[in-house]
């Protein structure tokens, strides 16, 4: 059998060229794999959902509701009533969170270890596109249950999109098939197509390119490999060892996330109810919370250029995130180097870069904190909203700067003491862990 296939498909060449390829091992490398697992689970659970979901707002009469409800809403209740339906839907929901979180942590790992440097700039760029695509995909799926909460939350995104100068209205109208409101019957079919077809296909293509580049350019490896076998790749072969490891890890991943999905059901649509004129108090998911926070503390102003408005909604909702994305894309090009990067760098040996990453994380946390402005105000009736906004602004700007300075000083101090240690003992203790 193998021989028959080999003669036709040249399997042994595939074997020596790809399957025996050595992959360096480090626990932080699993972050990229977890992202991949989350995507696989999203596709599988998503297929189940499409088989039972009705992408329509046609009114249907169902038990327990006096008035007709949108068919999309009713079909989510139906899915929840199927055997394991609610678990699979929750698994889909939590996997989206996990995919975004894992991609983000994976990106931090790449940044902290210098793996973005030549020759891997392209894969860094593809990676950022993947992270953005993952977030946009999650956003387009949000409105599909068509409950009051989902519709309100998506509506905010719709209006942020509209705030983009010149193109905003057209872009929002294309994404949502017109205006986003409960009575627009075209929105759900449009979002459905984008969410289950176009964006997943795009993600799939980009993930493929990402992994191909990774294989072609060879993975960076931990520093000890340089001492043990300089110039060679130290790792385990893709087949069978790496594949078995990945397979086991995938099964563990599925087991753990399914348990989570069973224990914590996601987005209880029946608690939110179908859309009504009443606005529920919505909070965006954690990956939008920082944008939501910035929107809450920006002052209001008016700036018209060539008929387009550059207001705070545009600045907070579009400009700041775009600048951060562009800044992240520029990172590998700010540190050009002649040689190819082959080994991981230690975060402790790059105090400036590491401190910068910590400062950005602090910025993210502080902006997220601003997202709870209303809750702070409700909890402290004596606090004036002006004072709170001022405090949040100070935190947003000062905390990241302080984080940078403190972590830089600490790392410099710690690193210097280690240099001394190296002089004494001739080796760095635990330097390569």
């Amino acid at each position, binding site marked *: 059998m193998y021989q028959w296939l080999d003669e036709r498909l040249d399997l042994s060449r595939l074997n020596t060229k790809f399957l025996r390829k050595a992959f360096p091992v480090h626990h932080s490398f699993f972050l990229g794999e977890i992202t991949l697992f989350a995507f696989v689970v999203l596709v599988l659970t998503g297929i189940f959902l499409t088989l039972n979901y009705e992408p329509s707002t046609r009114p249907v009469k169902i038990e327990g509701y006096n008035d007709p409800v949108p068919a999309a809403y009713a079909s989510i209740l139906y899915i929840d009533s199927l055997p394991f339906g609610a678990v699979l839907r929750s698994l889909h929901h939590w996997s989206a969170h996990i995919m975004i979180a894992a991609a983000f942590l994976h990106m931090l790992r790449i940044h902290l270890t210098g793996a973005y440097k030549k020759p891997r700039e392209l894969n860094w760029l593809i990676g950022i596109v993947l992270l953005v695509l993952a977030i946009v995909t999650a956003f387009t799926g949000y409105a599909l249950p068509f409950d009051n909460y989902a519709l309100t939350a998506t509506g*905010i995104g719709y209006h942020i999109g509209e705030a983009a100068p010149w193109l905003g209205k057209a872009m929002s109208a294309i994404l949502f*098939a*017109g205006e986003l409101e*409960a*009575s627009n019957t075209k929105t759900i079919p449009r979002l459905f197509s984008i969410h289950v077809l176009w964006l997943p296909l795009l993600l799939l293509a980009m993930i493929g390119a990402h992994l191909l580049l990774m294989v072609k350019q060879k993975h960076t490896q931990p520093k000890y490999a340089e001492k043990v076998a300089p110039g060679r790749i130290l790792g385990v072969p893709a087949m069978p060892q790496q594949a078995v490891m990945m397979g086991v890890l995938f099964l563990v991943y599925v087991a753990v996330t399914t348990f989570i999905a069973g224990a914590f059901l996601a987005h209880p649509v029946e608690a939110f109810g179908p859309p009504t004129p009443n606005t529920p108090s919505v909070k965006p998911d954690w990956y939008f919370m920082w944008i939501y926070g910035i929107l*809450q503390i920006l002052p209001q102003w*008016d700036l*018209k250029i060539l008929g387009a408005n550059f207001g705070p909604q545009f600045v907070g909702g579009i400009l700041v995130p775009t600048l951060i994305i562009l800044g992240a894309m520029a990172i590998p090009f700010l540190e050009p180097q002649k040689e190819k990067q082959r080994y991981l760098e230690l975060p402790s040996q790059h105090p400036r870069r590491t401190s910068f990453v910590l400062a950005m994380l602090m910025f993210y946390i502080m902006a997220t904190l601003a997202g709870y402005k*209303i809750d702070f105000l409700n909890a402290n009736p004596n606090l004036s*909203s002006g004072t709170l906004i001022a405090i949040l602004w100070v935190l947003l700007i000062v905390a990241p700067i302080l984080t940078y300075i403190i972590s830089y000083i600490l790392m410099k101090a710690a690193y210097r003491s280690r240099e001394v240690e190296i002089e004494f003992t001739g080796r760095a203790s635990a330097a390569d862990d």
Partner: protein
Amino acid sequence: MADHDHDTHAHGHEAALEPEAPEAHATRRAVLQAAIGMGAGAAVLSTLYVGAGLIPKKEITPDREPIAQGDVLVYSQGPKRGQPINPAELKPGAEMIVAYPMNPESQVVKGAELKNTLLVMKLDPGTLDAETAKLAAEGVVVYSGVCKHLGCVVSNWVADKQLMLCPCHGALYDPKESGKALIVAPKPLGQFPIKLENNRIVIAGEPTRPIGVEAATDDGIRRV
């Protein structure tokens, strides 16, 4: 231009006999590049044209017509959904009702259009400022329900402060002072002039501001 064209053409002809002529290559390349460029341009244009078709035309059905003078306010939800609001039944200062306008002739409730959402409340007439009182009737005031910030329905009533609250980002509007925006929102909510007729609330004219999300200016904002 025509002369030049003729010239290159002649060269191209000779090239057929003499394959090495470099100008012939250049011309052929230019023609091919122009063809590819025009093809790509046509492809982009037609894609954009198809793309423009992705923006659907808005259908104006009777339940989506804009708010008009003479419209009667009805409950948007709850047990009395679709029934006219009786101003005598409103509890002063205690509640705010999310309402839709109804065409009095056809009896069609124009609730399919988000922008038609209206807010109705009865306040102590003594607390209203002059501008607001002019458009109110016996303390009943009516505002557009679409938040100026990012378009949520301003559906909550803060009874102890007598303010309208948008749950999305906490914008506060003051119904006693022409819908002035206190925080978050860039502009005041538009107020509708109304009159009371046969125990009904009737729209009596245009709102004080355009309806829906608006850009910021300085008017009407009290910075806190």
